[in-house]
């Protein structure tokens, strides 16, 4: 008899609905790109999606495509092509993987979704530098390639307290996008449509926040690794009713698990960890299994919470969008970040924290300026640092990661 693998993790039924959402999303984009019936805007993941939506654009997010390159472990084969073109191995491996794949004429979409052979051609590229400057370089390359306009928002970085001047400057930049986007779309902005998109985006965000909050239950019904894929609609579907419907289903299932005392782990949840930084997309399955085998659940993260936009307010679309985009964790200063993580550790009842030191994403890495040591001094919650990367598997050692994690769990056991 064949040896049966022990089931370590419980699958979420509603994940199928989320997968369907993603398939519909990409097929709709592909159809629009082929028929030319609807304009396509490329947008950074925390760019002004609500505005684009209300002007009738379909939105494609290159970051999600780059994450797919990572998750399918294609990225490491694509990155060298971009490196050879002058994009350093030290910069964003989303950028290098995505551009490398484009140059090679390869996309994971064609494997995942039959009939799609390429990424959809943009009519316009709209960026927001609230995450990093790399997105602008990335979009400029494509703008040049497709001869399409590149417009966007230059955000404030390392923001401490958010002031009215921060909001005013971002809101006016968003408003300044309206005229060129109207011209390209061939239609005027309907303020009611914008308000509706902002309202739906807020609803999607609130539902996603509630889904993530269920992980405070013991045992947690959710793992970080599940959340990284379940967050797809929150990223690409902001401002759509379908994304809202999808998260209602997910929330119901998670609440049902909580009510039934069912955790995401089949076995005992001995320890609960917080993950700071990006996931290692090419190792989602491996890491998920590794932790589950150790009876550890990584229950919460900074990364998955980055698509919670509680400031969105349909009665004041431009200013509330400006606030929501500026409140983003990655755009804040270390004092804010430290307090944020500290509160999450408390809310989720974490026994430890794992900092992913992503080689090519210093913007999404929070262990480079002494934060782990400061937070440890404040909370007494132990930490471990993992060297790796979001997409470039040349930057990580699976053996060292395994030893680090296992040793960390041994340490938690000793401290119990």
């Amino acid at each position, binding site marked *: 008899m064949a040896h049966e693998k022990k089931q370590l993790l419980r699958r979420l039924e509603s994940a199928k609905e989320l997968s369907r959402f993603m398939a519909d999303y990409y097929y709709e984009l592909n159809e629009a790109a082929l028929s030319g019936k609807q304009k396509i805007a490329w947008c950074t993941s925390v760019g002004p999606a609500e505005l684009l939506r209300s002007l009738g654009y379909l939105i494609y997010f290159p970051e999600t495509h780059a994450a797919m390159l990572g998750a399918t472990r294609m990225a490491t084969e694509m990155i060298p092509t971009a490196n050879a073109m002058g994009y350093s191995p030290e910069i964003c491996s989303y950028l290098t993987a995505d551009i490398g794949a484009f140059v090679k004429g390869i996309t994971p979409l064609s494997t995942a979704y039959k009939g799609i052979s390429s990424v959809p051609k943009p009519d316009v590229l709209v960026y927001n530098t609230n995450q990093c400057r790399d997105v602008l370089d990335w979009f400029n390359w494509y703008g040049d390639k497709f001869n399409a306009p590149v417009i966007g928002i230059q955000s404030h970085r390392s923001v401490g307290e958010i002031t009215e001047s921060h909001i005013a400057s971002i809101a006016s930049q968003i408003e300044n996008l309206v005229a060129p986007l109207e011209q390209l779309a061939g239609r005027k902005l309907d303020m009611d449509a914008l308000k509706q998109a902002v309202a739906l985006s807020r609803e999607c965000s609130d539902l996603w926040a509630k889904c993530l909050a269920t992980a405070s239950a013991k045992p947690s019904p959710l793992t970080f690794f599940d959340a990284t894929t379940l967050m797809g609609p929150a990223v690409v579907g902001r401002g759509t009713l379908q994304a809202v419907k999808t998260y209602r289903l997910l929330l119901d299932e998670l609440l049902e698990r909580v009510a039934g005392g069912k955790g995401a782990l089949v076995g005992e949840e001995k320890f609960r960890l917080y993950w700071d930084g990006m996931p290692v997309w090419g190792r989602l399955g491996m890491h998920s299994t590794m932790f589950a085998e150790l009876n550890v659940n990584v229950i919460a993260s900074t990364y998955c919470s980055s698509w919670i936009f509680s400031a969105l307010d349909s009665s004041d679309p431009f200013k509330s969008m400006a606030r929501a985009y500026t409140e983003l964790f990655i755009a804040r200063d270390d004092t804010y970040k430290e307090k944020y993580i500290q509160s999450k550790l408390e809310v989720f009842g974490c026994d430890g924290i794992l900092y992913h030191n992503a080689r090519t994403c210093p913007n999404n890495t929070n262990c480079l300026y002494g934060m782990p040591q400061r937070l440890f001094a404040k909370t007494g919650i*132990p*930490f471990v*640092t993992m060297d790796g990367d979001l997409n470039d598997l040349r*930057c990580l050692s699976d053996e060292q990661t395994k030893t680090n994690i*296992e*040793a*960390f769990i*041994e*340490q938690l056991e*000793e401290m119990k």
Partner: protein
Amino acid sequence: MVAVTCCGPDVQPAIPAPTYYLKSSNMSKAYSTEQSIYAGVDVGASHTKVALIDTAGHLCGHGVRKSGVNFSATAEMCLADALHMANCTPDQVTHTVSTGYGRHNVTYATGNQTEIGCHAKGCYFYFPEAITVIDIGGQDNKIIKLDSQGRRISFKMNRKCAAGTGAFLEEMATRLDIPLSDMDGLARQSSETVKIGSYCTVFSATEVLKYVRQGEKVQDIIKGLFASVIRRVLEMDALTEKVVMTGGVVAHNPYLIDLFEEHIGRVIMTPPFPQLAGAIGAALYAKANQTSDNE
């Protein structure tokens, strides 16, 4: 070098220190075939180490070989060497814990622990107080901080780069065309240290080539390499407690410990067999497992 090889006067070691220095012929006398023993196997990137301890915690045999490409076979051979030294039979090994990168390749192991845990346990056994353990291994370096109860407070491993590890010194020995075993003696003859600043092994090699071209003495270059290893380790973490050093690199290059002491201005403690610290820790885990099995 100030060799501190055992606990302070107010703390009695669980085993008398001289036991560790017994020759194999002497070791064999104490062990009858009925006595249970515990094995620790540390399959490192460079060498595999086996330590055997008895129910009283005495080290009764050990074996060290290059890990090679067949970890399972090497672990078997090291066990055979250790059993021979202890004059024991395989049947006497009640529990075996494996550790190190090849820990899952030890077919006769009954459990496994990470090398972080085993080095910590092995060092705390000799120095039962709050300590910082620095292990310089073939492939990686570790800094482990323990509280006075022997519990791990934190640990760090070096990043992917091999600079500061045994692999770095091996690479440099090749570049300088000298046997690895000669490095310690040559470094001791140095009158001046050359500065090797890069934390990249490849860049360090080019620095070495520059010094060769300039006609610097090999002894001074090697001392410079030792100083470079020390700097790489000190960059990893702050040393807050008493310091214990372990690993094959310090076992074979004790002058490195002298230089380290000079550098940090503190006495560094070393267990009697620095290279065996992880294996002894693993054997102690094996013994502890046996104890818990019997409870």
